[in-house]
């Protein structure tokens, strides 16, 4: 089975989802990411979904699970690049992904992770 590649970007992991994933592929990604966070000690996870034309409740659940698991492993998850039509549809679906941080693009997502690190160093951990 194909798997979605996970890249290392400094202290963070970057996943760019470019295919219309079937469910097993999504579950495999969740599994792989958890392993990789643990193995690398990454502080953040960026999931770039700018190529995704559809996010249904299953993918929504996957994003939610990744964010929760990574938080337990002390890594912050940022979902970046969601398209407007996808965002509108998710809201209509009732899936507003509370607890997941978002950013417009990878660059801004990285900045968000850096700020969290800085804030933590100052003893001001922000948890949403």
């Amino acid at each position, binding site marked *: 089975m194909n798997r979605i590649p996970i890249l290392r970007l400094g202290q963070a992991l970057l996943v760019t989802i470019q295919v219309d994933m079937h469910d097993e592929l999504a579950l495999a990604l969740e599994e792989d990411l958890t392993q990789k966070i643990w193995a690398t000690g990454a502080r953040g996870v960026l999931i770039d979904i700018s190529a995704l034309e559809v996010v249904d409740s299953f993918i929504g659940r996957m994003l939610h699970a990744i964010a929760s698991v990574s938080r337990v492993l002390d890594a912050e998850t940022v*979902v*970046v*690049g*969601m*398209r*407007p039509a*996808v*965002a*509108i549809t*998710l*809201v*209509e679906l009732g899936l*507003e*992904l509370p607890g997941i941080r*978002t*950013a*417009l*693009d990878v660059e*801004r*997502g990285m*900045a968000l992770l*850096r*700020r969290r690190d*800085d804030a933590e160093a100052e003893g001001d951990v922000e948890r949403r």
Partner: protein
Amino acid sequence: MPDTQTAARLIAQEEAAIVSEWLRLQEVDGGLGSGRVSSAELRVQCERFLSLLRRGLAEGAEAVQDPAFTELRDVLRELSRSRAIQGFTPTETATFIFALKEAMFRTLQQDADAAWALTRLLDGFGLYTFEAYQRAREEVIARQQREISELSTPVVKLWDGVLALPLIGTLDSERTQVVMENLLQNIVDLNAEIAIIDITGVPTVDTLVAQHLLKTIAAARLMGADCIISGIRPQIAQTMVHLGVDLNVVTKASLADAFALALRRVGQSVGRAAPVARPGA
């Protein structure tokens, strides 16, 4: 000899006289006194039309849709279109054809069959101008509707990463949907992390519109942008509260206050990421 060819021959004999009479009649009835079409321009149009008509008739064409009249139809369509845009009434526009009927009356008296064939043909062209006029007006209206809807959804870039959507007038649920989709697309296009929705110019908001507004804010958050609502009137505030809305929406009294907050947020993030302070931050 077929009737149409008889008509063509009769027209050819008195072509110049027909054009003069035709022009005179249009001065009277065609609303041309206002100078929207110059008399030189009109003369060219009339001469062209008449010669195309005569040629078509000589080829035996009897109906408006005849291939021999292709060029004539193009001329007529363009003429009707330009008059529709210039603001002529449908009657003034159709007078172009109906005045020709009158101008040729005397000429065609010589042959009743030819007169009948031509009368029917010109009636057909008269209707054709109406239709072309109507289509052109519809195009104008459609274009204006597009322009109005674009004008009513002005997304303005206020600063790097900050945009504003000043809403004016009553929002119905359809317009709100268009406006909001437009806002979200602009967030992507302008790479804006903060969007200020200013509703100072909105007198009332019904439940459905308020819901659209809040869904948009939720969608913007999913995309990675924050919204600030400014200029909420007391009545709208009540609507939102009755909706049970407490969606962590940041609100500010005025657009200026919202902008100040947006600048602080953008400034802070830029300041932290790079040590050089940005002007205005």
